[in-house]
């Protein structure tokens, strides 16, 4: 008799830890106003690095294309341990490089070539450039958590998020170029979390590649 409530309590507490409920929507606000920062990366790190934290590893490579003499996507996010691949869709050569701490590399990308994937082993921010086309810039945020997403239409949703304490982190080139924004999040099944931004956000679009014309020399 006396064992049942204890089991129930254990089951209940387990349920509250592992159960999934409706997705959590995170929005960025400043002085009560929703802020728009398309592509901003938000990731959640569980306070106790738990059993689930490293399970959801995708085995297909994360793709960053060179297309129409620009990177696509401009900002993206992936998890530590995943392969990244840089297919060149253009009919011109690129020279992709990064000097960032998590991954320092250079890739000669002759036209229409897809090179072998590269594995990222460390979390952090990777700034990508092209040594031939200096307007080409892209960012890849490598996170050590399976819970990550990017702001679209002013919000990002996290489904199947276990209840618990999290450190929430945010990065966008026009918000915090060098550091990440951090905040605490105690998730107990709520549907909405408003993240107060320290300032009004003025997120800029990716620089457009100059139009390519056959009658012009690229190297002016």
């Amino acid at each position, binding site marked *: 008799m006396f064992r049942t409530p204890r089991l129930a309590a254990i089951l209940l507490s387990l349920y509250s830890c592992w159960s999934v409920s409706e997705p959590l929507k995170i929005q960025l606000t400043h002085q009560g106003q929703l802020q728009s920062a398309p592509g901003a990366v938000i990731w959640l790190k569980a306070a106790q690095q738990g059993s689930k934290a490293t399970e959801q590893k995708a085995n297909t490579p994360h793709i960053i294309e060179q297309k129409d003499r620009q990177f696509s996507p401009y900002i993206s996010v992936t998890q530590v341990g995943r392969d990244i691949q840089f297919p060149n869709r253009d009919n011109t050569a690129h020279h992709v490089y990064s000097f960032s701490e998590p991954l320092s590399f250079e890739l000669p990308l002759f036209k229409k*070539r897809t090179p072998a994937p590269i594995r990222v082993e460390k979390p952090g921010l990777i700034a990508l450039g092209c*040594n031939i086309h200096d307007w080409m810039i892209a960012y890849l945020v490598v996170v050590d958590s399976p819970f990550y997403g990017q702001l679209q239409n002013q919000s990002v949703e996290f489904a199947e998020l276990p209840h618990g304490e999290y450190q929430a982190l945010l990065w966008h080139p026009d918000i915090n170029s060098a550091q990440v924004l951090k905040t605490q999040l105690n998730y107990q099944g709520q549907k909405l979390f408003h993240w107060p931004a320290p300032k009004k956000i003025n997120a800029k679009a990716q620089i457009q590649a100059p139009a390519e014309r056959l009658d012009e020399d690229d190297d002016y």
Partner: protein
Amino acid sequence: MVLSLALITALNEASASNDTLSTLSQRISAKGYIDVRWQHFQGNNSWLDLGTGHSRLDSSHNNRPLLADFAAEIKADLKAGSQIITQLHAYPEQNSALEITELYWQYRPLHASTMRSRWRVGFFYPKLSIENRGSVWSSLYNLNYSAINSWIGEELRTFGVEGRWSWKFDKPSNGKAPLKLNLTASAFTYNDPTGAILAWKGWSNHDLQSGINNKLPFSAPEGVAAADNIQANSFQSFREIDGRPGGYIGLGLSRKRAFKVEWFHYDNQAEDTAFEDGHYAWHTTFDHISAHYFLTRELEAFGQYIRGRTSMGNGFVDNRFESAFIAISKSQGPHRLSARFERAIVDDLDNTPLDDNKEAGNSFNLNYSYYLAPHWKFSSEYQQRRSRQARRSYRQEPIYAKEEQLSFSARYYF
């Protein structure tokens, strides 16, 4: 030597891989154009036909279709940031062979800082021209180049090494490119006769680009023919005569698609008493300033100014030369309208009889082009040049001449 080494390395690398053919096709790219033209010219016969006129195509080319120019640029990617670049032109109307107008190795090393650098080794144009930012060093705005750029096309090339360093001053923002400070330095050889065409033919407006083995016709006036050393009946610009290297430096500021301003100082350091095989070394030095400003995205104003001196034979020829042009160009969708005004002079400072190189001329060019993307461009152009040139009197011609040319061109770009 460097070029062949680089090429061998590239070929070795390519053949080491399994997919040699696809690798090579991925490493080599070509672009260029074929220019078919119809023109009507009125004025003196072309200097290329030993006349005293300053165009490339003259009245002997009137009113018939002409294959005016075949141009190609071939790039071979050796490895990341390292390429061999060749530019070729053929002018069937001048019975020219396939002219190699540039052949060099270009290397852009990676730098961890915001500084960028570019190295060029071989035979190439110093990047002086604003106008000639078209494919294969053509003018983006006109069929006939300005006097300064026509002269560069005739006899100015770097046969050596050039380094260029750019420092970014601010971050790109709102789609605006960063502000850059650009420094260029070069050492070169094989440019000793440069100055001869400017002195003995003068300024021109045309679209002829000399190849590495150029040999342009020259008929010596009596004064030149009387010299101790007999000048050959041709100009051969890319020769080394005195064994002394020349150099240039450039300094400028730019913001891509906003503005560019650059100053160059050039000195070929030629020993101007040297003579070899029918060709003199000409000591040629100049300062060149170029400016390009985008008033709006579609409206550009630009210009170039040059002032320099060329001498040979210990005072046998001593000339001061100067030229400037300003141009304005408006584009709207596929349409582009460009106008250019210029002045070009040569002052003869020596007293050699029967070789007066004095000249002064004004030119005007109006061009309308329609770009049928991506492959076709149709242009119509009116070019006028009025000049006074002392040496015309040696041919019993009036010193003053007016040259007018109406051209229509259809270019296929690939």
